[in-house]
């Protein structure tokens, strides 16, 4: 096979990117994982979301999420001109199967993926009467299902509607940020399945993580900042009408 210098220059960067992806798919040994070295969060580059619902499906499959409940979901907003305070929002089956074709041309349409914000000052962990839900040392809000009473106080306390009582287990369930994956060096199921890279797992303790540069140079914000929950799901380009 003859490989010209021109072809080599084109293929080399592509191979490098591909190799990086291959390496990303290689699970890190769990025993090498040090919780104290990480502080996980999520970057949601909202304008990139196309509402395909792949993330919702991948999450449901990966985490065995019961029908009718969602660890993550996608909302479609329709904002008509100046009426920012009254957006029309839909999320049929959590956006799992995508969305119907927009009927109206007036105003703007956009998608907003939602999930647990893995708040560092999370109101859900504050209220749990037995401490069954907690913030892990690496910044992930988790639930111990063997300890949870199923009182649903945390469901009431979550401002984002991210928790539910599992209909069979009778304990609370929520996004774990695919903890079983990220502690092995993988990314989350939703990030992996996103075709546009709208979701990116970020490690805020890793100085080399591009999130630091991204947050410096982009108008990112968290949902409901007035709740002061220390949310770690950062949204880039979020429309002001989003709740």
């Amino acid at each position, binding site marked *: 096979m003859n490989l010209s210098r021109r072809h080599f220059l084109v293929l080399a960067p592509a191979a490098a990117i591909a190799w990086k992806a291959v390496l990303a798919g290689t699970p890190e040994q769990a025993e090498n994982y040090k919780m104290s070295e990480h502080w996980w969060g999520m970057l949601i580059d909202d304008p990139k979301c196309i509402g395909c619902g792949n993330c919702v499906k991948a999450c449901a499959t990966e985490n065995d999420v019961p029908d009718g409940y969602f660890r993550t979901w996608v909302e479609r907003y329709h904002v008509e001109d100046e009426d920012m305070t009254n957006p029309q929002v839909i999320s049929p089956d959590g956006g799992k199967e995508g969305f119907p074709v927009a009927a109206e041309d007036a105003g703007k349409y956009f998608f907003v993926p939602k999930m647990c914000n893995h708040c560092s000052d999370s109101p859900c*962990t504050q209220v749990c009467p*037995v401490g069954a839900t907690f913030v892990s040392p690496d910044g992930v809000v988790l639930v111990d299902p063997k300890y949870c009473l199923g009182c649903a*106080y945390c*469901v*009431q306390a979550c*401002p984002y509607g*991210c928790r539910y009582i599992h209909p069979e287990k009778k304990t609370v369930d929520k996004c774990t940020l695919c903890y079983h994956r990220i502690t092995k060096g993988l990314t989350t199921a939703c990030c992996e399945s996103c075709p546009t890279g709208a979701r990116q797992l970020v490690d805020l303790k890793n100085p080399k993580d591009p999130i630091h540069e991204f947050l410096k140079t982009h108008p990112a914000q968290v949902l409901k900042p007035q709740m002061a929950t220390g949310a770690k799901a950062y949204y880039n380009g979020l429309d002001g009408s989003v709740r």
Partner: protein
Amino acid sequence: MTGVEGFMYPNEVGLQWSVLIVLYPFITGLVAGAFILASLERVFHVEAVKPTYRLALLTALAFLIVAPLPLQLHLGHPERSPEMYFTPHSTSAMAMFGYVYLWYLMAVLVFEIWLDYRKDIVLLSQSSKGLLKVMYKVMSLGSDNISPRALHIDEKVGWIVTLIGIPSAFLLHGYVGFIFGSIKANPWWSSPLMPVVFIFSAMVSGIAGVMLIYMATTKLRGRTIDMRCVDTIAMYLFYIFIIDFSLEMLDLIHRIYEADESFRSLDFMVHTQLYIPHIVIQIILGTVTPLVLLFVTQVVKLPEQIRKRIYVISGCLALMGIFAMRWNVVIGGQLFSKSFLGYTTYKMTLVTREGSLVAIGLSILPLFILWALIKLLPPWATEPPTHTAAAD
């Protein structure tokens, strides 16, 4: 989606807290209110309400025994509830429940009842036979000294327990209000006024409840209702009701005037789904009507028979209004989306663990327990009926 108007976050469609969680604050409110009424005589020396003193204590105990049941039935894993005692989470308001409950039940209510009844228990253990005798013996805890000096000590200690009991009753119900009031995610609940409103509404329901129970039991026993007693209770009911109503109106006016981002959502709810339970049942029928009726008894000299009827109607309406208030807080607070863009509906089931039949059963259960407590520890002196002959 059925029952949803506008947009709800997908996990919000079904309500998490059912009618059983409505019952819980209603029942604890009755407990706290009944105890406050009892303390009027014991601590504040309002002699007129003495006929209801013991009955109020027993009523409080009967309801307090039932108070944790709706919570237990609601839990996904009730078998894990002891963990709240063993490994409580220090930042959780709900983790306090077990301790506040135990403190109130054992250190305040049971202790006070025991001190007040100790002489009776000793005498009953001497006069009764068989199993009942054993039961009274056990209840006396071996303390059978009923000398005047011993009874004087009982009296003194009982007074101190009641004194401690008043803030404890406030704690018991104020804490229930705090459970709701401290949830910043929910604007319908999140208010520093919530514990105060809960305390005063508890007093209203407890006082109304004991007044009705006193009137009913007196009637059933064929005795004459002590009008000085019920007039005094009605007076306290009226004044506390005014404070309660003022606080609730303050909260409402504040919300309307401030009109923050949640207002449109809450306003819509009050005009639609919550119109009947909030405006009609809670405010018009359950608060304004009994307040007007009680006001009339305070300013117009009415015949005894009419006053009695007014008190019964006012008491029933007040209880209904307070139940509606609990309903509107617990259920109403879950009917709107935290996105403020939509509403869901509550469908109460009939025969399920959290259904209406269970709720009705739990509401009636304290009355059976009270009946048993009255049989075991009669709150009144055993005298022959006073007006049975006349009635006959």
